[in-house]
């Protein structure tokens, strides 16, 4: 047998262990009891659907019952007919969508020709979006087409919707876009 470093140390380590083995003399019960505590033990369970693809896997979201109610864990829902508890890597990483230090918590604004983003308030951002949408829409609004038919539309704005929106969110979004007069409404419809 050619003794490599790995093997050599194995042998010497094992020999040393052979001289003084027998796992007696240490009380491991606190360590082992800790190892048996489930982090989701006191969590609230809510079911949800993974937003990432068209398969529509069911997941269980564990949130803290105390204090902030943040997400502790998200895993596949064994009772869900589609995935029976399984999730792919995207689904298995779902909690990273919510609990993520890189996640933006405030709206960011980059002014035209600026090269830096600055944090702005929600009030300012929503007001500014509404103002600009209204301005563009009013400037382009078409009541009648070339044939004289009533169309009430704008072709100056397009909406590229979110794949992560669920059915109900899509309905509200669609209603808003139609009310403004948009016809270019695109959505990577999944769930």
């Amino acid at each position, binding site marked *: *047998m050619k003794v490599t470093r790995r093997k050599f140390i194995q042998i010497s380590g*094992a020999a040393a262990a052979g001289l003084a*083995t*027998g796992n007696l003399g240490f009380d491991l019960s606190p360590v082992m009891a800790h*190892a048996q505590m489930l982090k989701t033990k006191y969590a609230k369970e809510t079911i949800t659907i993974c937003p990432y693809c068209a398969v529509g896997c069911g997941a269980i979201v564990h949130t803290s019952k105390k204090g902030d109610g943040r997400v502790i*864990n998200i*895993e596949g829902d064994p009772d869900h007919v589609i995935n029976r*508890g399984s*999730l792919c*890597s995207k689904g298995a990483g779902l909690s990273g969508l919510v609990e993520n230090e890189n996640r933006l918590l405030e709206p960011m604004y980059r002014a035209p020709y600026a090269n830096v983003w600055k944090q702005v308030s929600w009030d300012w951002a929503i007001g500014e979006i509404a103002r600009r949408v209204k301005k563009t829409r009013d400037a382009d609004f078409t009541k009648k087409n070339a044939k004289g038919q009533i169309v009430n539309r704008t072709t100056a704005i397009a909406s590229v919707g979110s794949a992560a929106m669920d059915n109900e969110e899509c309905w509200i979004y669609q209603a808003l876009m139609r009310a403004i007069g948009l016809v270019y409404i695109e959505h990577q419809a999944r769930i």
Partner: protein
Amino acid sequence: MPGKSFFIDTLLCMACKGCQAACKQWHDLPAEKTVNRGTYQNPADLSFVTYKLVRFNETVIDGKLKWLFFPDQCRHCMEPPCEMTADDPRAIFRDPATGAVIYTADNKNIDVHEVIESCPYNIPRTARDGTLAKCDMCNDRVRNGLLPACVKTCPTGAMNFGDREEMLVMARRRLATVKKIHPKAKLLDPDDVRVIYLVTEDPMLYHSFAVASNSAFDISRKVALNKLLRPLNRLTAGL
């Protein structure tokens, strides 16, 4: 101690990395910065914060390209060389109920690098401060009647977990079926470890540490025998 075991059928693995992500998620481990190295295997290797890694290998066998997937993790050896090398149950111990080999943060009295070198599968990794980490079989989940996170999430049934006898039966039955199409198929070290892989090609093509060197467990068995013969050694030595 029959305990628990995994059966990992690499033939069913499609390398979605669900196990890898679920493992990180359950253990609250951070992501690692990765770079495009021309392979989907990311991060490049196991680490202090990556206990489970799907290894990708492209190889040509009989003129055909084969893409081999190997969801690598701690094998939870029946007689773990790392546990014996450490020889300090405060640092490394086995849960008698499941057989899970558990590393604690209490590593003051062990030679961390010797422990790493003792592993026939090159699994343990250290943090900067020298603390060891690796797969813990999701012992908290298992002791509470849940499947390990990696097994729970597996969409194809490549990852299986249960009582050891049950897993051995499953592994042998599956091997018999697979052998009809893949004559080179075999189980990796089924008698020595709790994580039994089924591979259809030479294990070295999957990962250089896919199987243990022949000597590794012979030594362990001798040590185990010593243990049986001298159970009171530590007590009589007065620690």
